[in-house]
């Protein structure tokens, strides 16, 4: 899908009709709209969003407040009884050449009391069928098929805000983006709604025994408690996110300090933080392994003497020749059934041979035990060996843990030294920032602990709830009257389990795909090819950038590098989303310094190959070098010129 044209009429600084036709050629997939700050670039992006969704996501970029959509001068010149209208028309074309047109307009009238704006805008959508434009009755449905509002921010975005994605406190943004783009938020909603439906159905059952009512009451109580814990946990997580945002801001202030020593100490501290995070993870893995091994091998260790004794007994029997057994019960029974020995002697009833063979049968029963002893030996031998090597392996793990703890303690000591040195710097702002940071870190630790406790309470409540649900189902199954209700609850519960399992699996798969694609894009785009090796998205949706020596270094990326990471992440999300929509980026190179800017400009067309990309760039971004790098791929090129005298923007075609 490509944008053929954007037509603006009295939309903010665009007075009268302004038509911008974009290039739709696959090989020349880049369109550039250049203009100084305030010329109307962001408002053109707003116009696209407003036309499609009746929303303007980028409105507060500079002004911080909402301005009227209709052009100021038009409104001022409006005479009593007259009407002014702002209108945006967006023409899109798909790969099969089918054209869809979206329109939205809003009006205002002047009467004797002043100007009155329409409460709601008016929107239409048309599709070209042969020569005719046919109005589409389900406009919203058509928009959602092209690009739903929930995923539009991965297609239309502000380059200057891109790096916000990867600040530490933004893991929830990454999570939501992944869930939205892969439509897994659908599954999440379905699970939440089904859970509530089942709870409501359960509540409606009017029991004929006090026991059923008691269980229902207990379920309500546990459900209420769990919801309360969930709410508390959400609040705490939000609080934690706020604290992390403040910590990140302090970090940035220290990194941007005029004092070189402050910058150096902060950089070192960030490296140490990343190292500590890694050490904690490895420590946790080792500690889990240690306790798992105790659980797994504990029984064998406690039973070592018994195992050794059993093996000795087996050896004694083996030496005596009892093991392996010479007589098998099944073989003797076969002879008796057949009535003939292998030597040809007939085994008749009450005959001597029969009595002899029956005697062997008694001995064969003991042989069965010997046979089991052989099997037992095969099972006991490895257990004894594992128990023997347990101490050695545990000692190795303990030594490893001690080493990691030593490294952790050294890193923590160095962090404390950095803190003392920063507090000692004779600049009031730095000292204050350090004190605030320390207090925030304390709060952060407390909140992490509280969130952990709440998580445990939620898990316990869920377990209790499952127990009660089973109990209720058992009670209901006793009465014919509740047969249907019980089956419905069971069906709802089974469906809930299936949806939850599907979600878990798809979330993991999607995260792994996005991780891989982000890494491919990032390593392809980044100019420091020898520095970075890997991108990771963990279970909590934190993104890590791993350097060639294996350390995490997201915190030390420059603003430009973070922007490249964000561009890579967005490209990965776009690919996974399955939506073939155009990309519009406002100030794509705003935060990137000269040399990397040219590198990105050179790679950008290939990086979003086969996608129509419209770039709104300031004159500072769109340097002659950037233009040269993009030249081969530019479809259309415009300059927005703001005429201050007439308070309106004009569009000039370049190239």
């Amino acid at each position, binding site marked *: 899908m490509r944008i053929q044209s954007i037509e603006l009429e009295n939309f903010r600084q665009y007075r009268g009709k302004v038509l911008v036709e974009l290039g739709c050629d696959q090989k020349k997939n880049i369109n550039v709209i250049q203009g100084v700050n305030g010329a109307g670039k962001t408002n053109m992006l707003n116009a696209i969003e407003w036309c499609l969704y009746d929303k303007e996501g980028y409105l507060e970029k500079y002004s911080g407040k909402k301005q009227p959509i209709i052009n100021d001068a038009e409104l001022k010149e409006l005479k009593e009884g007259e009407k002014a209208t702002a209108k945006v028309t967006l023409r899109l074309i798909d790969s099969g050449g089918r054209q869809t047109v979206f329109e939205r307009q809003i009006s205002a009238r002047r009467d004797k009391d002043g100007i009155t704006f329409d409460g709601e805008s008016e929107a239409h959508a048309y599709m070209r069928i042969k020569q005719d434009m046919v109005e589409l009755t389900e406009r919203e449905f058509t928009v*959602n*098929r092209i690009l*739903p*509002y*929930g995923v539009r921010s991965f297609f239309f975005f502000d380059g200057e805000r891109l790096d916000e994605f990867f600040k530490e406190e933004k893991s929830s943004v990454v999570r939501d983006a992944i869930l939205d783009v*892969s*439509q*897994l*938020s*659908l*599954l999440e*909603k*379905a699970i939440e*709604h*089904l859970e*509530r*439906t089942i709870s*409501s*159905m359960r509540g409606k059952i009017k029991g004929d025994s006090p026991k059923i009512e008691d269980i229902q009451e207990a379920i309500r109580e546990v459900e209420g408690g769990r919801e309360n814990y969930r709410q508390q946990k959400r609040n705490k997580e939000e609080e934690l996110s706020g604290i992390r945002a403040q910590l990140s801001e302090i970090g940035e202030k220290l990194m941007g300090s005029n004092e070189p020593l402050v910058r150096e100490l902060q950089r070192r501290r960030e490296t140490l933080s990343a190292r500590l995070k890694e050490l904690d993870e490895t420590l946790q893995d080792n500690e889990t392994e240690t306790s798992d091994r105790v659980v797994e091998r504990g029984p064998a260790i406690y039973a070592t003497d018994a195992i050794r004794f059993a093996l000795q007994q087996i050896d004694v029997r083996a030496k005596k020749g009892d093991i392996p057994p010479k007589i098998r019960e099944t073989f003797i029974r076969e002879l008796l059934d057949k009535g003939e020995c292998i030597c040809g002697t007939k085994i008749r009833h009450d005959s001597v041979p029969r009595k002899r063979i029956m005697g062997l049968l008694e001995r064969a029963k003991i042989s069965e035990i010997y046979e089991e002893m052989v099997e037992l030996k095969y099972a006991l031998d490895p257990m004894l060996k594992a128990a023997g090597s347990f101490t050695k392996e545990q000692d190795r793990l303990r030594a490893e843990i001690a080493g990691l703890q030593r490294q952790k303690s050294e890193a923590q000591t160095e962090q404390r030294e950095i803190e003392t040195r920063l507090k000692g710097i004779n600049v009031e702002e730095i000292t204050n920032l350090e004190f605030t940071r320390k207090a925030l870190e304390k709060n952060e630790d407390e909140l992490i602990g509280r969130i952990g406790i709440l998580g445990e309470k939620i898990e316990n409540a869920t377990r209790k709830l499952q127990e009660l649900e089973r109990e209720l189902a058992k009670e209901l199954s006793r009465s014919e009257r509740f*047969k*249907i209700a019980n*089956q*419905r609850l069971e*069906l*709802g519960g*089974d*469906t809930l389990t*299936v*949806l939850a*399992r*599907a979600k878990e*699996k*798809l979330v993991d798969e999607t995260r792994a795909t996005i991780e891989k694609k982000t890494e491919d894009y990032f390593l392809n785009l980044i100019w420091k090819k020898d520095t970075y090796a890997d991108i990771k998205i963990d279970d909590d949706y934190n993104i890590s950038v791993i350097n060639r020596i294996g350390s995490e270094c997201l915190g030390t990326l420059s603003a430009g590098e973070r922007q490249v990471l964000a561009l890579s992440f967005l490209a990965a999300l776009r690919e996974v*989303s*399955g*939506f*073939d929509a155009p990309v519009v980026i406002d100030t794509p190179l705003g935060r990137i310094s000269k040399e990397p800017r040219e590198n990105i400009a050179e790679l950008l067309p290939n990086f979003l190959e086969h996608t129509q990309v419209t770039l709104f760039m300031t004159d500072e971004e769109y340097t002659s070098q950037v233009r040269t790098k993009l030249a081969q791929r530019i479809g259309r090129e415009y300059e927005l010129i703001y005429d201050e005298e007439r308070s309106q923007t004009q569009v000039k075609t370049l190239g």
Partner: protein
Amino acid sequence: MSRLESVSGRILNEIASQTRNKAVRHLATEILRFEMENWKKERVHFTEHFEQLISQACPEDQRRDDSS
């Protein structure tokens, strides 16, 4: 099939691989269809609709409907 439909198809395929129970598959699919139609709507009245879907998918209900 558009790429978008194939994304939804991925969810439905995963559900199908999780269970062989036809009633569960049918109910899960219908619930997802409802969520797709109401995606991003702020207020969605789902309880009654879901109860109806459960009743329609429940084998015991179907047996009763057939015999009546």
